[in-house]
């Protein structure tokens, strides 16, 4: 059962990585505008001729 002393910090570390990911998305203003991206992706498709 002593493995818990390694597993517990390890799981916290994993959680921390996700927290960092969240912080990154906040820092890069990805939560600024929650509506336009949903609309924008509708138009992203480019029609390329000859491909």
């Amino acid at each position, binding site marked *: 059962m002593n493995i*818990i002393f390694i597993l517990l910090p390890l799981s916290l570390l994993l*959680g921390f990585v*996700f927290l960092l990911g*969240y912080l990154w998305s906040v*820092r890069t203003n990805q*939560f600024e505008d929650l*509506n*336009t991206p949903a*609309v924008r992706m509708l138009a992203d498709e480019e029609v390329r001729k000859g491909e």
Partner: protein
Amino acid sequence: MRSGFCCAGCHAAHDFIKTLGLDYFYELRDREISWSAKPVMRSSSEYDHFDDLNFAKVFIAEETARQSRMNFQLPGIHCAACVWLLEKLPEVVSGILQVRVDLMRGCAVVRFDPTTIAPSGVGKAFAMLGYKPCPSALDGTTSSAASGDSLFAVQLGVAAFAAMNVMVLFFARHQGYLTSMEHSYAKLIAWVSLMLSVPVVTFSALPFFRTSWASLKHRRLHIDLPIAIAILGGFVASAVNTILGREEIYFDTVTALVFLLLLGRWAQRFMMKRVGNATDLLHSLSPLSAIVVQEDGSRREVYIGSLAPGDVVVVADGEAFPCDGTIVAGESHVNNGLLTGESRLIPIKAGDFIFAGSKNAGSEVRVRASEIGKASRLGRLVEKIQTAPVRESKIGRFVDRISIYFVISVLLLAAFTFVFWFGSGFWMAWDRVISLLVVSCPCALGIATPITLGLAGMRAARRGILLKDGEALERLARAKEIIFDKTGTLTKGELGIEESCLVSSSVTWSQVWEIVEALEKDIEHPIAEMFLRLAADRGIAAKELKQREVIGGQGISGLDWDNRSVQIGSIPWLKKNGVHFSADAKFALQKLTGGLSTVVGVVRDHELVAIFALRDVMRPEAAEVVRNLNRRGLRCAIMSGDSKSVTQEVGRSLGLDTQQCLGEITPEEKSRFVEERGQRAVFVGDGANDGLALSRAGVGIGVKGGAEISLAVSDIFLLKPDLSLIVESIDGARETVSQIHRHLAISLFYNVIAATLAVTGYIGPLAAALVMPLSSFSVLASSVWRAPFRGGCP
């Protein structure tokens, strides 16, 4: 779809979609935005003023040597097509690097290379697509609000991370409580939880500590105070116990508390509509550019900030005056509605003084500028509105008033508990006090109140009512009196036909309308626009005149398809032209000109054939709304800048007492009167002349249609010019407040039971961890179950 297109791109897209047979898209779209779709007018501006150095100082941010940024408000965007079209600009116009559109806020950020394209080129590119770019000033307010939002998001994220992990650990710990756990594991969990809780208390919980500290300093009450005491007490005591190796720790309850409370705040914060940048107010009301006539007679468009007193500017028909000044040439009419609330057009000629923000309605005039920008009458009014002291709410938030009893009783009870249990040893008393502090946290209230308000705000927004804050709702629920502005609020603020009369037997109505349509076609004048709209409604076929002459401010004459002379215009002008007035016509005129309306005559073959009496028409729902408000126990009154007789007539038609209809009131008087009526008075208004009153009233309700200034200063903003929303707001507000009271009762009930158990020693960390969410969730369920502003009758 008759309503017109926002832009050329939407028009093309519409045609394309229609050929594919997919027009259902428009039905879907119109259902959502029908009230905001308004065709955007093409502007004749060349955007030369964008290149002005003074303009650049205010509106253009230099990011690197080859990249600058401008922010635009784009009033006309509301669909995916607009976003797509605008964001494609960099591919079409060289020099524009990036366009990012924010659909909800209706604005765009444009990055461009100033070495390749001039700012005016950017403006022209937007105009080319049919959008009118209104630059918004680059001041700190928007970016600091955004950084405040992102700080809040980080605090919420950290709290969520810590609370979830601590909860998992405590599951194991509480399990171990019952089955007995090895001491080393319990110790590990305690220390890890302590480390996880430190950032929650020292960082995520800061907003609570900050508001409690401020409330202590200003001796104002706030619900955050008992919350802060619980968080701090629970954390410090648990930390001490961890260090000493004792059992009683509450990290799970404390972190979950912070997380849930922040979640509630988040709901409130993001569901309430953020209100626009106040510094753009002046710009939204008066034009940004002016056309200056130079010494040599040539015309140049300059930024308003570069205009100097003494400059002569040209103001075209239908445009707003950019500055206060004196007319030096030309004759026209002016519409002062925005500034004073007057509904009638006032004739102006050389030597007359005009104010910035009022509209030229007639023909082109030249004005010598005297006061510009902040020095103008409009500028001073806007400044007064902005510097208006923050309302000291006498009623205050009900929840906050409760908090003081909370704090006092909890602290007294804690002292009592400590003394009572001290006989059984210090640590016994210590444990009882901590558990009391933790369980008596009014968290249910702290979570449910913002969520109730947030849900109310979100649902209200869906109905077209924007709420600025929750306090406004509480004040609205207690309102006793509603004061209306007249022009633009009770009335439509635009001319309509009050009465029309055919005074010759030689013509039919459809012939009259054909003449009117042909004469008024393509003329930019409020009266012409109104006639054209009505002609289109009647399905009048367009016919071509052989010739046409427009006499500014007087009327229009021409030669019709059968070579007969036709005219439309003011009665004095027609008389001067030697038009024959039949006996019928004279009688009808006497009746109509006696009233308070503007009279326009239509002439064919030198004979007056029809008369229209025009006036600011009443909103159809106004009378019903007044009745409904009376039924809810609210008194109604009118305050207007318009003449007393017009105001009283409007009041009479709504069934109001003449004493309640005050006319000829200046904006300053209006705000004073409204302030005197006290906190229980609601003021409903739209124009800039109402701005001051809106900001001083107990509750200010702004109505869409007039100036956006009312958006910035009012507590509640109606997105559609529909007065019945006021009744709905009041019902919603009353329901919201009664729901908050119900939650308070539930929350208090739980707290009393929990506190009793804590004092008597029946509650430990495990029971606290169970009771706390129980109370919170029951209150939460109640707020989601019956949210106000359901809008029973859409």
